[in-house]
């Protein structure tokens, strides 16, 4: 009976979980095998490390790699740093707190491309910001702020879009902390900073790590923010992968190398960052 029920459960998993796993395995398998020279659409197929060798020697790939890594790390850290104080502030309901949390979470409803459009519309040569600065006499001529070379626009957009997500996760975690434990810490003479370090952070660590991992992965694989608002002299990894697939002779194979590298970056980077946060929290508790 027990065995039958277990078998039934596994059978029920097939159309949902089974489909997900098969699909992802095929997509992943396709990327890995194309990076190694299999499944070519033209010419010979066969095992070869040629694509890895040429791509890894490509200066542009490494520029993209470091750029994406920097944007992803900064976006994840900034989002969480901004979300923490807000989550703590909104822990207890007060007048207007509902409105404020709804307003803060509104960017979750705005499509990434729309956000990017609103942003460049705001900062462009003939945008609101420039007009406001010129008409108040702060500057004489409009500034050129679009597609800034340091990727500040992209990081701003990432934080705009992802901070509410971190806030959502952290609010839940922070609200789950009982008053009694915070009161106890207060009675023992802990000030606000100590309470944050020794009570709040350890108890909300899992939620924070979840937020960091998901934001990091999203930002590392970003395409649309980068194309619309990012620097024109460097590509993000996704943009580079797309471009090289379209333009180079061994497009699919080279793009596959970038894809494998991008997945590794997203996975390893996010796990390392989450680990670093855990270490920091342990140091903060001491």
């Amino acid at each position, binding site marked *: 009976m027990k065995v039958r*029920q*277990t078998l*039934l*459960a*596994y059978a*029920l*998993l*097939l*159309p*949902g*979980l089974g*489909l*997900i*796993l098969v699909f*992802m395995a095929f*997509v992943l398998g*396709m*990327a890995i095998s*194309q990076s190694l020279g299999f499944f070519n*659409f033209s010419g010979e197929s066969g095992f070869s490390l040629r694509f890895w060798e040429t791509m890894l020697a490509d200066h542009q790939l490494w520029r993209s790699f470091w750029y994406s890594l920097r944007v992803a790390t900064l976006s994840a850290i900034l989002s969480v740093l901004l979300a923490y104080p807000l989550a703590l502030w909104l822990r207890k309901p*007060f007048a*207007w707190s509902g409105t*404020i949390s709804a*307003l*803060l979470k*509104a*960017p979750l*409803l705005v*499509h*990434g*491309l*729309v956000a990017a*459009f*609103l*942003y*460049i*519309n705001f900062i462009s*040569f*003939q*945008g*609101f910001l420039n*007009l406001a600065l010129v*008409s108040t006499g702060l500057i004489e001529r*409009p500034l050129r702020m679009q597609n800034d070379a340091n990727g500040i626009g992209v990081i701003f957009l990432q934080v*705009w879009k992802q901070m509410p997500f971190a806030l959502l996760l952290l609010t839940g975690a922070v609200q789950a902390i009982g008053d009694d434990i915070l009161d106890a810490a207060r009675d023992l003479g802990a000030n606000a900073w100590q309470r944050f370090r020794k009570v709040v952070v350890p108890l909300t660590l899992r939620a924070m790590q979840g937020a960091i*991992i*998901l934001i990091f*992965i999203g930002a*590392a*694989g970003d*395409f*649309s923010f980068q194309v619309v608002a990012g620097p024109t002299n460097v590509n993000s990894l*996704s943009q580079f*992968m*797309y471009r090289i*697939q379209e333009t180079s002779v061994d497009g*699919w194979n080279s793009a596959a190398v970038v*894809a494998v590298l*991008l997945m590794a970056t*997203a996975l390893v980077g996010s796990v390392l960052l989450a680990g670093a946060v855990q270490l920091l929290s342990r140091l903060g508790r001491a």
Partner: protein
Amino acid sequence: MKGHWFNRVLIGLLLAVCFTWLVIPFALAMLWSLVDPNHPWSYPEILPPALSLGRWIEVWTTTSLPQTLVNSYALAPSVAICALLLATPTAYAFGRLDFPGKGPAQILTLVPLVMPGFVVAIFFSSLLFSLGFYSRFAGILIGHTVMFLPFAIRILTVSFALVRQDLIDAARDMGASPWAVFRAAYLPVLRPGILAALIVVFILSIEEFALAFIVGAPDFTTVPTILYSYLGYNFIRPNAAVVSLILVVPNVLLMLLLERLLKGANPASITGKG
């Protein structure tokens, strides 16, 4: 009290920030979409010289926007229904059965959430290509369904877990057929979850860009891909404003509806007891 005063300043500050980063950008988008095509809005005019619906009409009649809307709004409900049907058995297993490996299995359903969208898009299209599968609609339908299954599974799992065993047993004891048991014990609790799953997947599918862009290229357009074509290298500001509003407004309304639905999903209010 000092804390009270401090809180008020914070509230005011935050409302001001939200105003600059939500209200002004959307107001500007609205203005740009209403700029009269015959009277361009150029520097250094603070406000557009003339407003009209001309741009909306022009975008509607000269671009592929109508076909795009048909594509998007045919695709999204199909994705939602497919995802619902495929997610239900798995959600039932997660919500109502105990079996070895349940925890890891639940974590594994989240795999699509941690895969970079463009990697999935490009190599799914390469997979379709090597299989000789050329229907763009069906390709995007399959891709979206799988990518958004985790959301449907998660929502329905919670709904299934809320169904009360005593109600099921009571219905069975009174000799109800399986269908009657489902109608009496399951359906009332599942209904908000089913609707929520449909709406969430619908919105996600309307908004998905990477897969629709890569698999649909060059001729199958959805709302995000047509918006993308007005951004990037050839930035056509008024058109982008029009399409942005078309993309955002319906989804925000749907999300508000969803929020209401999920609030009503309290099991006590459905079963009539605590």
